[in-house]
């Protein structure tokens, strides 16, 4: 499978709200990260909009399905538009990929547009890949933004 195809499939799982299938793309040691600051080096000494290990990411998906998840019921409808896909490195069974994300979100009579630089670390698994690390740098991460209750 080509890297592009994998990223498009990942986006489609989110846009069709197959969140549990999307979660299964992540390795057991995966991290999912939306840094707060431009060029942020770590998630330990600086806050993050989201910094989940696999356990927390699973809780995030479960919360989205809870009948009293007020900010997530109903789930926002989204389109994840993936572009500018480039393989940065491919060694030791791990592929580092850079891409851009344009995301349109609609919920509660409000449409929001997000832009981000994205980095995936993908591990080869059978014919495809699994996600070992996903970093999403929102262009407005340092701005005054309304609550983020979607998955990127």
């Amino acid at each position, binding site marked *: 499978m080509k890297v592009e195809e994998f990223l498009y499939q990942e986006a489609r799982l989110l846009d069709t709200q197959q969140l549990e299938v999307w979660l299964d793309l992540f390795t057991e040691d995966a991290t999912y990260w*939306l840094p*707060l*600051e431009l060029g*942020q080096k770590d*998630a*330990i*000494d*600086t*806050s*993050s*909009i*989201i*910094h989940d*290990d696999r*356990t*927390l990411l699973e*809780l*995030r998906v*479960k*919360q989205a399905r*809870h*009948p*009293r*998840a*007020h*900010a*997530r019921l109903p789930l926002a409808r989204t389109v994840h538009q993936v572009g500018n896909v480039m393989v940065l490195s491919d060694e030791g069974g791990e592929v580092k990929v850079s891409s851009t994300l344009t995301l349109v979100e609609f919920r*509660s009579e409000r449409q929001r547009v997000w832009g981000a630089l994205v980095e995936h670390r993908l591990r080869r698994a059978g014919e495809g890949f699994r996600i070992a690390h996903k970093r999403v740098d929102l262009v407005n991460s*340092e*701005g*005054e*933004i*309304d*609550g*983020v*209750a979607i998955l990127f």
Partner: protein
Amino acid sequence: MGAFEPQSLAALVQADRVHRSVYADPGLFELEMERLFGRAWLVLGHESQLKSPGDYFTTRMGREPVIVVRQGRDIGALVNRCVHRGTMVCPEGRGNAERFVCPYHGWSYDSAGTLLAVPFADGYDKAKLPRGLKAVPRVATYRGFIFASLAPTGDSLESFLGPAKASFDDFVDRAPGGELEVAGGVFKHAYNGNWKLMLENHLDGAHPAWVHASSVAVARAAPEPGGPGEERYFDIAVRQMRQNGAPDSVWEDTGMRTTPRGHGIMGDYHDDSRLVAGMGNPAFDEYRVSLASKVGEKEADRILRVTLWNTVIYPNCSFMSQFRQLRILQPLAVDRTAVHTYSFRMPQAPARMFRDTVAFSNVVNGTGSWVLTDDLEVYERIQRGFASGAVEWAQIGRGFGRDAPEPGGGLRGATGTSEVYIRAQMRAWLDYMAA
């Protein structure tokens, strides 16, 4: 009788109910900017943000853009508006500057705001030129926290804070050597709701079981947090989300005190051992030793036994002294509010203590948090509800009639879920607005 005469305003905030217009009327919001945010002491930040002469950061007081700047040993605040053509002379952010130069025509000011130079100066009668940027009339600090007031006269800062000083004392006393610094990035979030909704929510022990039901449920089903020395990354998130599902008795037993200026102090239920690196944890033990080496064993015990949760400083701040989080709100419109959340590092404590603060901040105060996002959703639904005129009043009467007097002139709720804190905020609101 005009709409905003004292008697009309008093009619909006009654003993056990408040009129929806207090949250929804744009005219009242304009009056709040003048009489409340234009008079009260506002929390602006912390001295650690301004270490060297010329260090500055920008913020807003109500809607006034201001520059907070280190002027030698003093701290000053200047209205960020060129006296020439009204331009903001300093871009929003922080940095160090020897002078502020207006980008429009190059008028320049020193860090005290004094006008230094004016291009094409021959065109002016020098005697009639303004002296410089308008200074915010009163700036003061309490234990390192920076406050300012747009009013030239009024309460002293100490009198304004009253018994709420003790929460700042707790914040600082917990830090070995009394040393704190802003670190780890600033969360900035906004919501389509009135500014008061956040201050009310932060002292509300009756809401977590409902608003946070989904995060409580998933955290209860999560793997058990590890014991001392065996913590995993997700433990703090799981512990904190579970805490929101504490039984009613825990919230009822929580202390709830207020002050005459509308501040509120919620305390007595969280303790370090249940939440962050607790007693028995090597990092916490090391921190405790560091604290005790400065103040002695007995005093360290006393300090660590204080268990304060949120303190609200009316009208623009809410902080958690025990977890070193401070939130400053900025009212943007009657139905739009921005909130900046700061984390504090204790430079003389083990690095792990701050890492726990960061992890705690992500789960509780983060823009993508499981917890905060549900609060914001509810604020927006309240604002939509208050836009309706079909029902005029909101209730603030839980525990009314059972409030007990507190030293310093405030009141204590009969139980932790008493709405005494909203009643105190509304009382303070009327004092500022009708004065």
